[in-house]
């Protein structure tokens, strides 16, 4: 009787590993060992993996594509379903040029530009983004990439504590909830007192701020436009804050608003932090986006993270290099201003390409179009008689209260292939039936009319 053929689970050749068995043999011989095991003799036997890991067999590229494609189908069709929600992440149109720039592997397969002679592409882009963001925020100097707006704001708070040697922090109640939580996490070890400044009519209550401000306050953090879209009186707020020598931190989550709003310089802002996602980054389920931290020249030595500076090479040619490095962890270790090393640098190419394409006129026009669209939808929804509005100044996000149960409103929007607005009652218990809408240029007037019509029919 013939023995049946034993099917051997054969490992497939791995296309990402060029080393052949023959070369492996040659190399081991050259090293002077007879087996790979000799090279890892330092690893105690008792901690080595004995059996195969319980992981799937390797798949080929085609199988991988099919598998992941099928998982992606379990998501909603987000390309078609446009979001009426923002809350710190905004769907704007990203020009194809931005994507083609990001896809250049000379950019995305590079490391941090430690060797400037072969990294001028990355370094010049950092410098250009520092310039763009400085012009948009009106601040002297910009750290162009931290992780995201929340962590950048937390870094700014730590920086304010170092600068003032004070430990009380006042957060605007209308700071993005995730930003508040991140600040709490980052400051937890440092014996801080955190206080929230209440709001009134969807804006920071300046009187309450003034009443509670004392000499122990390191910094006051106000988001503008705030979490409910409201446009704050930044100058008035910062004047109050400076009476007690506290530092004024302004935070922006919808950076497109910077095209229209007054700058940090005009408002007396000490630190300006934000999320630059609106400048060329897709939603990507929450990240990677790009946090930035801008400040005045006098605070430059306390900044966290990487900055590019201009210099010359030995032939006198202009070139860029990471500078003010004596703040960073690889040099200063536990005395560094932050532990940050890897940041979200690739997104700087998106920001640079996006802002270059939009330019001075385009960004302004786009911001205006966003404001118009949002105001149009708000008026239209109120006109259906099924919503109550509130009068406060906003940019492209606004709160409106549904007369019908919000679950039904959301359901109705979903049926019409729209991602519903944020329900605010979960975050602000007093705001029952309130919805936070965001409207960007991805909705045409016709789209907005259709949304309004949905509610004319009733829910």
């Amino acid at each position, binding site marked *: 009787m013939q023995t049946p053929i034993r099917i051997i689970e054969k*490992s497939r050749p*791995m296309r*990402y590993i*060029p*080393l052949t068995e023959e070369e492996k043999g*040659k190399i081991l011989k050259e090293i002077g060992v007879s087996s790979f095991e*000799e090279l*890892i003799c*330092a690893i105690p036997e008792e901690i*080595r*993996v004995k059996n195969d*890991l319980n992981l799937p067999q390797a*798949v080929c*590229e085609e199988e991988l*594509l099919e598998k992941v494609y099928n998982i*992606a189908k379990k*998501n*909603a069709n987000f390309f078609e379903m446009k979001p009426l929600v923002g809350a710190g*992440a905004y769907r704007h149109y990203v020009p194809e040029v931005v994507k083609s720039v990001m896809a250049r592997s*000379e*950019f*995305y397969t*590079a*490391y941090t530009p430690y060797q400037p*002679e*072969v990294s001028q*592409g990355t370094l010049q882009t950092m*410098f*250009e983004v520092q*310039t763009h963001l*400085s*012009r948009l925020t009106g601040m002297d100097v910009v750290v162009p990439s931290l*992780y*995201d707006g929340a*962590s950048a704001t937390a870094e700014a708070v730590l920086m304010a504590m170092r600068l003032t040697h004070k430990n009380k922090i006042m957060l605007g109640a209308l700071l*993005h909830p*995730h930003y508040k939580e991140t600040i709490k*996490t980052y400051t937890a*070890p440092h014996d801080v007192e955190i206080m929230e400044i209440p709001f009134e009519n969807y804006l920071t209550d300046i009187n309450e701020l003034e009443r509670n401000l004392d000499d122990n306050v390191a910094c006051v953090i106000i988001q503008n436009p705030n979490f409910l879209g409201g*446009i704050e009186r*930044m100058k008035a707020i910062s004047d109050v804050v400076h009476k007690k020598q506290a530092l004024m931190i302004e935070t922006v989550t919808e950076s497109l608003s910077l095209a229209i*709003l007054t700058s940090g310089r005009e408002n007396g802002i000490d630190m300006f932090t934000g999320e630059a996602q609106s400048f060329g980054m897709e939603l990507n*389920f929450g990240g*990677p986006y790009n946090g930035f931290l801008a400040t005045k020249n006098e605070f430059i030595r306390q900044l966290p993270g990487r900055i590019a500076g201009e210099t010359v*090479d030995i032939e006198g040619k202009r070139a860029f290099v990471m500078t003010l490095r004596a703040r960073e*962890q*690889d040099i200063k*270790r*536990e005395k560094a201003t932050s*532990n940050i*090393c*890897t940041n979200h*640098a690739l997104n700087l190419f998106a920001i*640079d390409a996006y802002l*270059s*394409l*939009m330019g001075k006129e385009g960004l302004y026009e*786009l911001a205006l179009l966003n404001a*118009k669209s949002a105001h149009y939808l708000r008026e239209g929804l109120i006109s259906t008689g099924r919503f109550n509005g509130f009068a406060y100044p906003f940019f492209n996000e606004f709160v409106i209260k549904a007369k019908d149960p919000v679950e039904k409103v959301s359901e109705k929007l979903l049926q019409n292939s729209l*991602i519903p607005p944020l329900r605010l009652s979960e975050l602000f218990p007093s705001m029952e039936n309130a919805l936070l809408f965001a409207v960007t240029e991805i909705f045409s007037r016709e789209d907005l009319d259709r949304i309004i019509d949905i509610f004319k029919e009733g829910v």
Partner: protein
Amino acid sequence: MKLIYERSVKGRKGYSLPPDEFEEINICDMIPEYAISKEKKNLPEVSEVDVVRHFTNLSRLNYGVDTGFYPLGSCTMKYNPKINEKLSTLDSFMYAHPCSDTKLVQGSLEVMYELEQYLKEITGMERFALSPSAGAHGELTGVLIMRKYFEDKGEKRHKMIIPDSAHGTNPASSAMAGFEVVEVRSNGRGTIDIEHLSSLMDEDTAGIMITNPNTVGLFEEEILSICKIIHDKGGLVYYDGANLNALLGIVRPADTGVDIVHLNLHKTFSTPHGGGGPGAGAVGVKKHLEEFLPAPLVSECNGVYCFEFPRKSIGRMRAFSGNFPVLLKAYAWILSVGREGLRNVSQASIINANYILARLKPYYRPSYDRFCMHECVLTGRDYKEYGVKTLDIAKRLMDYGFHPPTIYFPHFAPFAQETMMVEPTESESKDTIDEFIDTMIKITEEAKEFPDILRSAPHNTPVRRLDEARAARVPILKLEEK
């Protein structure tokens, strides 16, 4: 090269906007006058072609893994598969809003959940948080977990032990979490001095942050004793996964006794470095620390995925739930490599590093003359007598088309002033490595005969050696507005 601002021409446009179909409305009717900027922000005005050429030309000034060999020690510059880039831009993933109801994002959550299962199997840890954005962010998460754990137990521990060989992020993360850093020495073999560690560990100390293999590319052979010393005094062991590329399928960190790990998905798991990021620093813990993990976690219940907020969580480390495309790419890489492939990855990376060490040690005396793991530390100390520094050797490598290794790190090793840390990864062929080795040898000859060529290197790069001191002395950090 010109700055994009230096290409700006008034009236030139690079954008196309949807038509404004709304009634004419004054901006002041929407936005209060006090909040409106008097002037438009002065961004450049260029055409689409200008932008495309600008960035194409900028990209040609850069060096990436796709350009050539990038043996940057401790950074694991391996090949970044193209298919993974495509997968991460599938519409249903790319356009997913983070505030969507979880029933609309079951696909994204499935990827995150499955990735967590794989990372658990690879490391032996019990639970992972995927939200930390980078290695250092994972470290901060980990030490904050340690802090919260002791707080919860009613213990006050204010010190953290860090080996002198550690990356700078370890002491910096500890300081950010409010710990006082205590440095433990390395012994003559390049690993942690156990006796010194014993003398440092006490009940005021939260624990130790350890990298294994360590930053000289050596496995901490006494890891079990190290963990015992820490645990005996009630402390915790943090494992920095920066060098996990040496251990896939060979050692599971959990089996070495550590309590917390972070993994750099942008190193070991092939996601690109992006010129400095984004990455992802997944943090894994054992059972006793699960409830302290940062929010949110992904869990599964009857085939439905959702977010979970651990009971005693340290809180949020950032907005939303993580760098999804990075997580997806790591997931795809694990599937492509498969269970046997993982071990082959580490095997090839160790073989390649030892090959470089074996062939170059007659020319660049290593800090420790013993087998290394996935990276080796060589020195250029023998060329100082010719007036050549390791920096010059590194710069000269660029003339030959290679990215230099990490230089002047680690600082602590014997002959530390002239170290170079070489990490070839599994991605390189023998031919590439041979070319690198031959070039390194050729440079030693140049060092002896024509040291000036090295001292003035690089010669063939887009810019020559920079005046870095000038950049720091008079910082120019943006283009001033005229």
